[in-house]
């Protein structure tokens, strides 16, 4: 009898698990096929190039800038920071991360112990704090440079975010809710600009598709004149719809990154990038 109860419990848990999983997987498939159907002329892997996958005039200028992109300076500076920083305990970033290669694809992931989404930028500051150093600013500057350097050495790796277990699914769902929720005085959700309106002009801009959004960060934006992280861009989006933006690595932004990255699974990382 006890055995039977155990078995039933086990089955229930397994079944429950399957149901929980089914949702993100099905949502990912629907998300991808929406974009594939909307833009049948775009090669699937090309979605990592954002708006440049859709607009040839913009793509040509972008390619010219990519010939010798301004973010190369940031990569060099990020390399120096990553390799030369010695914390007060004598340790370096290498003690936290080991190799610099293929790091980007480990993030974002759901850390069950910490019960939260860990992004690469969060991990960089965790490393600093673990070794007695002050955390860096999350949206700009040195952290974005280190991120650029590490992203550069993960180019070509494939986005492979795993959403597994109830806590991770909860984080995914929170990210999803954030993505689809209207905010700000202009009453816009991420989905309003970057799904049905992707490829359309909003004033002078062509709106980029959400599929592949996370692949090319951090980016050197011509508008910024500097390199910035994904969360800097998130806060820019908030601000553009006149919603209060959040600090970098806020729980909402991390969950959003988790959701968006999962939506772009199987695409390649190609950061850092140049964007207008």
């Amino acid at each position: 009898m006890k055995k039977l109860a155990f078995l039933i419990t086990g089955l229930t848990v397994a079944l429950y698990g399957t149901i929980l999983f089914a949702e993100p997987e099905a949502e990912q498939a629907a998300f991808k096929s929406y974009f594939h159907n909307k833009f049948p002329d775009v090669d699937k892997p090309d979605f990592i190039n954002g708006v440049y996958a859709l607009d040839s005039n913009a793509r040509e200028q972008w390619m010219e800038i990519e010939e010798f992109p301004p973010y190369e300076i940031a990569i060099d500076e990020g390399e120096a920071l990553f390799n030369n920083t010695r914390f007060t305990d004598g340790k370096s970033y290498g003690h936290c991360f080991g190799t610099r290669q293929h790091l980007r694809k480990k993030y974002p992931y759901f850390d069950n112990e910490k019960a939260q989404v860990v992004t690469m930028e969060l991990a960089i500051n965790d490393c600093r704090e673990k070794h007695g150093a002050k955390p860096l600013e999350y949206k700009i500057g040195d952290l974005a440079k280190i991120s650029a350097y590490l992203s550069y050495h993960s180019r070509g790796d494939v986005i492979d975010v795993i959403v597994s277990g109830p806590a991770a699914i909860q984080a995914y769902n929170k990210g999803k809710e954030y993505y689809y929720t209207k905010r700000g005085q202009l009453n816009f959700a991420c989905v309003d600009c970057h799904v049905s309106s992707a490829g359309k002009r909003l004033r002078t801009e062509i709106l980029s598709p959400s599929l592949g959004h996370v692949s090319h960060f951090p980016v050197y934006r011509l508008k910024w004149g500097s390199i910035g992280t994904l969360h800097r861009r998130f806060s820019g989006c908030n601000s553009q719809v006149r919603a209060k933006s959040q600090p970098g690595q806020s729980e909402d932004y991390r969950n959003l990154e988790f959701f968006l990255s999962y939506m772009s699974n199987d695409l390649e990382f190609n950061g850092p990038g140049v964007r207008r």
Partner: protein
Amino acid sequence: MAIKGKAKLRGEKVQVKLLIKHVMETGLRVDAETGNKIPAYHITEVVGSWEGKEVFRSNLGPAVSKNPYLSFQLKGPSVGDTISFSSVDNKGIKDSGAAVVK
């Protein structure tokens, strides 16, 4: 060295590209906090040399983009040669860099 250079042999020509870290302040922008104009601060001159000879010279104004990019083509250098660069801005601050022809 903040001037990053790349030099690639393509056929008979060496394609030289360089990127210089510089704010290239136009002198027209206004500091939002103080209301004062931010003074012009930009690179004025970039020189490229090969085997001790000056082969390229460019004068830049503040209308060149932040982190200036320049590209030109050279006839003569071969793989392994060094092309060196130097720049100076309107405060007299100098910078340099080099690229080996690949």
